[in-house]
């Protein structure tokens, strides 16, 4: 009974957190306050559900408890009649929502755009969305954006205070304001997907990836004229299509070039190709469309029977022109090794060799390790692979890298 109650609470946490939070915060525009109220409601659930059983409508139960906390908090702050009317309206709305299981409107997209408001610091819009909608911790978010965790934690607190103080409205903005805000929303969704992607075999991580794809579809359906939204969804679907191929039957890690194309999900690839086609027809090429095009070039192998590194390198050149991202430069180097050899690839990484962000970035060391090994630079390869092993959180990836490092000594 306790186990079922715990799992029910966890399921609701994962499935409904963002929706409930958006709903609670919409009226008060106080995201931090809504988070506190919801957190208390969850704690309450974990105490009472084991004894009294999991309620038929867990969402409604949580809302009711959270609402009480919220109204209490507001009462403590306000004494005027206007405050009372406000509380009354909110209570009625919550009660109505509570009685109908599917009536809780999904205000998540509105909350995401609110978090992307120009009054919020640009670098914090995506992290804020990740925390409020997808419930990621400051530590995970920090890793995704290559920022120290403590710094990220502080900035998140300040950003939420900003929403409350500035009474930032929860609307989907007008067309003219959409483009800048959309980018933060897309960055957040994609960062969440990327986190779900790197953790295989972890049910919570897979659900995170599913959630990101769900939100991606939501954005595309609500904003059908935005090519970058389609580009991002395509990008996620290309990656998702290869999920099963990333591990062999023993659970060992399989790199992209070695993957069995028969394990790639053709339906998802077709869906991604269609989205990419639409995105390319609809507007200027942006970061997500280019990354999706790179994925399209990778999966062309299943039709042509051979990889096409040439076009991958060319597309990374375009991407770099847009973003100047060190991650793009790194991925380009991996492809460049196939067209011009490992020495040229290593030379191409010189501009970011001293970049502090790379010091704790596992793929930097893994890629360097492989390139140095191929270039015959064994000592450097050994060091780099060792660092990569130390930074890997995935067991299968660790084993793979250890095997690569051992091969160095045999060669």
């Amino acid at each position, binding site marked *: 009974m306790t186990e079922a109650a715990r799992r029910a609470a966890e399921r609701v946490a994962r499935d409904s957190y963002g929706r409930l939070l958006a709903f609670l915060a919409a009226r008060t525009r106080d995201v931090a306050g809504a988070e506190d109220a919801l957190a208390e409601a969850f704690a309450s659930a974990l105490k009472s559900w084991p004894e009294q059983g999991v309620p038929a409508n867990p969402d409604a139960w949580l809302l009711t408890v959270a609402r009480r906390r919220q109204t209490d908090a507001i009462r403590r702050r306000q004494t005027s009649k206007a405050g009372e009317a406000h509380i009354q309206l909110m209570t009625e709305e919550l009660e109505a929502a509570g009685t109908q299981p599917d009536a809780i409107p999904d205000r998540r997209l509105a909350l995401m755009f609110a978090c992307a408001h120009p009054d919020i610091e640009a670098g914090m819009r995506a992290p804020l969305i990740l925390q409020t909608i997808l419930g990621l911790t400051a530590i995970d978010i920090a890793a995704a954006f290559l920022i120290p965790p403590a710094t990220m934690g502080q900035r998140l607190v300040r950003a939420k205070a900003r929403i409350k103080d500035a009474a930032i409205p929860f609307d989907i903005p007008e067309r003219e304001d959409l483009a800048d805000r959309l980018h933060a929303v897309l960055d957040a969704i994609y960062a969440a997907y990327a986190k779900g992607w790197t953790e295989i075999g972890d049910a919570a991580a897979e659900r995170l990836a599913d959630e990101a794809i769900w939100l991606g579809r939501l954005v595309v359906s609500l904003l059908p004229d935005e090519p970058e939204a389609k580009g991002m969804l395509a990008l996620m679907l290309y990656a998702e299509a290869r999920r099963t191929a990333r591990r062999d039957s023993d659970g060992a890690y399989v790199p992209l070039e070695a993957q069995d194309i028969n394990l790639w999900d053709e339906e998802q690839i077709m869906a991604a190709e269609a989205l990419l086609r639409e995105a390319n027809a609809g507007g200027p090429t942006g970061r997500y469309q280019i990354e999706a095009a*790179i994925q399209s*070039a*990778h999966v062309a192998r299943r039709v042509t029977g051979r990889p*096409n590194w*040439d*076009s*991958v390198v*060319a597309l990374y*050149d375009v991407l770099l022109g847009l973003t100047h991202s060190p991650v793009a430069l790194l991925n380009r180097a991996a492809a460049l090794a196939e067209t011009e050899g490992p020495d040229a690839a290593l030379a191409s990484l010189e501009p970011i060799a001293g970049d502090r962000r790379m010091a704790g970035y596992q793929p930097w060391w893994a890629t360097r390790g492989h390139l140095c090994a191929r270039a015959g630079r064994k000592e450097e390869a050994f060091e780099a692979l060792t660092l990569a092993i130390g930074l890997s959180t995935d067991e299968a990836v660790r084993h793979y890298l250890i095997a690569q490092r051992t091969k160095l000594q045999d060669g």
Partner: protein
Amino acid sequence: MKYLLMLYADEKAGAAIAPEQMAGFMDQMAAYQQTLEKADAFVDTAALQMTDTARTISAPDGQLHVHDGPYADTREQFGGYFIIEAPDMNEAIRLAALCPAASWGKIEIRPYHPGYGPG
């Protein structure tokens, strides 16, 4: 990035050229190939036989249809190609413009669909 340069020229006019003149044009093409090689841009080239040796097939309804001649009757015919390596379309255009065939015909420059090119 690789680009396909398709050379279009009036075959009949080409066939009417005197042999010594034609040899001169062929020398120019050989020189052009060397220019491409020096620029590290040359990948491949071939000439196609005239369109009277062409056949076109289609099978839209499961039935095979074969007709003599090229797909389309155009004023200038596709007679040969170069595959070149260039960083972008602008450079591909610059290199294509150096080809002697651009002066006696037209050159169509096409990028490959990402993932489905030669390299």
